[in-house]
C-alpha cells in the first residue's frame, strides 16, 4: 500500500507505470459514479424554493406572463438550480446539490461553486446542438486540422517538386496564407466570397432549418481554418521530408523505385514521426485560434464566456473557460504522445 501511494505521488514515472495511471483513472471514475448517484434529483432541487418563491411559481402556472426564471443544470456529480423573479421586489435564490445534500448558494463559496457549475454547463454546450460551446471548438479544430494535414502534404510535395510552375504555385499559396491574419481570411471566406459569387452560406442548408445560419458559418469557418492550417502544415511536412537523409532516396533509386514510390513507401512514412510534435503544436494553436469565430457569430467557448461576462457582470466566468481549454489540450497532447510512441517503434 505504501509503495502504491509512493508511485501515485511520483508523477514523473506515470507514463511508464500505466498500470498506476489506470488505477487512478478508474478510482476517480468510481468516485464520480458514486457521487453522481448520490446527486440530488431535479425535483428535489426545484422543491427547495422558499415559500415566497413557491407562491410566485404557483401564480406563474396560471398567468401567461412568467415572472420567475428557473434554471437547472446538472454537471457530472454536481447540480445547480436557481430561481429569480423579475419585477419591483425581485428576489433570487440559488442552490447547489452535491453528494446527497443541497446547499444554499447565494453567497461565498456556495455562490462561487454555483457560478462555476452554471458557466461550465453553458460553455460545454450541454443540451444545445453540436455547433455550440466546447463541441463547436472541438469539431472545428479537429476537422480543419485533418483538412490541413492532407492539404499540407500535397502542398509540401508540390513545393519540393522539380516542376517550377507547381513549386511556385505552392510556395505562393503558403506565402499568402502565412502572411495574412487568420481573422481576415475568415472574413474573406465568410463575407467577401459569397458577395462576389452571389450566394449565402446559409443557402447550403434547407430553407426550413432554423440552424442554417450557424451551419453555414461553420462551413465557412471550416474552409478558412482548413486552408490556413494547410499552409502551416505544408511547412511542417516539408521540413520533415527534407530531414530524411539523402541516403534513403539513393537506396530507393538504386533499387529501381520511382520518385512516387520512394515518397509513398520510404520518405513519407519516416517523416510522419518527425511531423507529430510540430503538428501537435499546430493543433494546440488552432484550438486557441478557433476562438476567432466569435467574429462570425458562432458560439464557441470564448464567445459564450464573453457573453456571460457582459450579461451577468461576472468576471469569474473566465476561470472555467481556462480549465476547459486546458483539459482539451491535455487530452490531445496525450493522444499525440501516443501516436509519436507508436511511430518511434523502430528507433
Amino acid at each position, binding site marked *: 500500500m505504501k509503495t502504491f501511494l509512493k508511485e501515485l505521488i511520483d508523477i514523473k514515472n506515470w507514463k511508464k507505470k500505466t498500470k498506476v495511471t489506470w488505477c487512478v483513472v478508474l478510482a476517480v471514475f468510481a468516485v464520480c459514479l458514486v457521487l453522481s448517484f448520490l446527486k440530488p434529483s431535479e425535483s428535489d432541487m426545484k422543491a427547495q424554493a422558499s415559500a415566497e418563491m413557491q407562491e410566485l411559481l404557483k401564480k406563474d402556472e396560471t398567468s401567461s406572463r412568467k415572472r420567475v426564471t428557473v434554471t437547472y443544470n446538472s454537471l457530472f456529480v454536481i447540480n445547480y438550480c436557481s430561481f429569480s423573479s423579475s419585477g419591483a421586489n425581485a428576489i433570487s435564490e440559488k442552490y447547489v446539490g452535491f453528494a446527497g445534500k443541497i446547499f444554499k448558494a447565494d453567497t461565498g463559496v456556495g455562490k462561487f461553486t454555483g457560478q462555476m457549475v452554471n458557466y461550465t454547463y453553458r460553455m460545454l454546450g450541454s443540451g444545445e446542438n453540436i455547433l455550440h460551446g466546447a463541441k463547436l471548438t472541438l469539431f472545428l479544430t479537429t476537422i480543419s486540422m485533418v483538412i490541413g494535414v492532407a492539404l499540407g502534404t500535397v502542398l509540401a510535395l508540390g513545393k519540393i517538386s522539380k516542376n517550377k510552375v507547381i513549386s511556385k504555385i505552392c510556395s505562393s499559396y503558403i506565402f499568402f496564407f502565412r502572411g495574412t491574419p487568420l481573422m481576415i481570411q475568415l472574413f474573406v471566406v465568410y463575407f467577401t466570397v459569397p458577395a462576389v459569387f452571389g450566394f449565402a452560406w446559409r443557402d447550403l442548408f434547407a430553407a426550413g432549418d432554423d440552424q442554417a445560419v450557424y451551419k453555414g458559418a461553420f462551413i465557412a469557418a471550416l474552409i478558412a481554418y482548413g486552408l490556413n492550417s494547410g499552409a502551416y502544415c505544408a511547412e511542417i511536412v516539408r521540413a520533415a521530408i527534407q530531414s530524411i537523409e539523402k541516403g534513403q532516396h539513393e*537506396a530507393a533509386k538504386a533499387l529501381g523505385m520511382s520518385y512516387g514510390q520512394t515518397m509513398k513507401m520510404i520518405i513519407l512514412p519516416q517523416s510522419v514521426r518527425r511531423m507529430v510534435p510540430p503538428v501537435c503544436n499546430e493543433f494546440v494553436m488552432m484550438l486557441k485560434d478557433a476562438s476567432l469565430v466569435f467574429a462570425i457569430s458562432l458560439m464557441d467557448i470564448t464567445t459564450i464566456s464573453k457573453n456571460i461576462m457582459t450579461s451577468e457582470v461576472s468576471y469569474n466566468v473566465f476561470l472555467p473557460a481556462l480549465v476547459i481549454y486546458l483539459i482539451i489540450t491535455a487530452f490531445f497532447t496525450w493522444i499525440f504522445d501516443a501516436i509519436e510512441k507508436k511511430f518511434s517503434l*523502430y528507433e
Partner: protein
Amino acid sequence: MAQNEYILETEHVSKRFGDLVVLKDINLQVKKGEVICIIGPSGAGKSTYLRSLNQLETITSGKIFIKGRLFLHREKDHTVERIDKETQKALLLEMGMCFQRFNLFPHKTVLQNIMLAPIEVKHEDKETVKKEALELLKKVGLYDKANEFPNHLSGGQQQRVAIARALAMKPEIMLFDEPTSALDPELVGDVLQVMKDLANEGMTMLVVTHEMGFAKEVADRVLFMADGIIAEEGTPDHIFNHPENPRTQSFLRSVLNV
C-alpha cells in the same frame, strides 16, 4: 558495336562540378564474373565513378554500356542518345548497390527491406519473394533477425542485410561503395566473408575499398585511382608488389605503413 564480351563498359566518362574536374576520361571494361577493387586516396573520384554507373551521379560526358547495350550517352551535360525508359530501368536493375552507410529503410523490418523492391518494382509474387528473401538471409547469416528493425542490429549486420537487399533484385553486377568503412573493425570480417562468398559464386563486383587485404585476396584486377583518373591498373600482385606509378607507390607506402 561488339561489346558483348563485356558485362560493363565505360567510355570516356568524365564529370565536373563547375570548374572542379572529378573524373577525367575513364575507360573500363569489365568481364562477367570479374572482381574489381578500386583503391586510392580520398577525393580521387572512386565513389563518384561507382555512383555514376547507376546514375546516382550524373556524368558530364561519356558512354556507359551494360551487357553490351547502351545505358547512357551524354556529352557536355546533355543526354545525346535517348534510351527508352523501360530498357534503361531494366539495365539499371542489373546493378545492385551497397552503400557505406547501409541506407536500410529504418521503418521496415529486415524482411520487409529485402522484399520491398522485388514486389513493388518487379511485381513478383509475394510468397516467392518471401521464400527467396529468407534464403538470402540464411546466406548472409541473419535468418533469425528477419523480423527485427534495422536500427536494432549492429553495423555489420545492417551491411549484410543491405547486401541481401541488393541481391534480392537478382543483379548481375554488384557495386560496393566502401562497404566496411563505417564499421567497427571487429565487424568488418563478417561483411568481407559474405562478399568473398559472393565473389566465389561468380558475381561480377566493383568494390571501392580501403581493405587492402580483401583486394589482395579476392580481386581479379585492382584499379588505383588518383585525381580523377585510373593512374594504374593490374593484378593485385602487380599493384601491391610491383607498382610502377610513383603515386601508387607513395599511396601504398602510407596505407600499408611499409
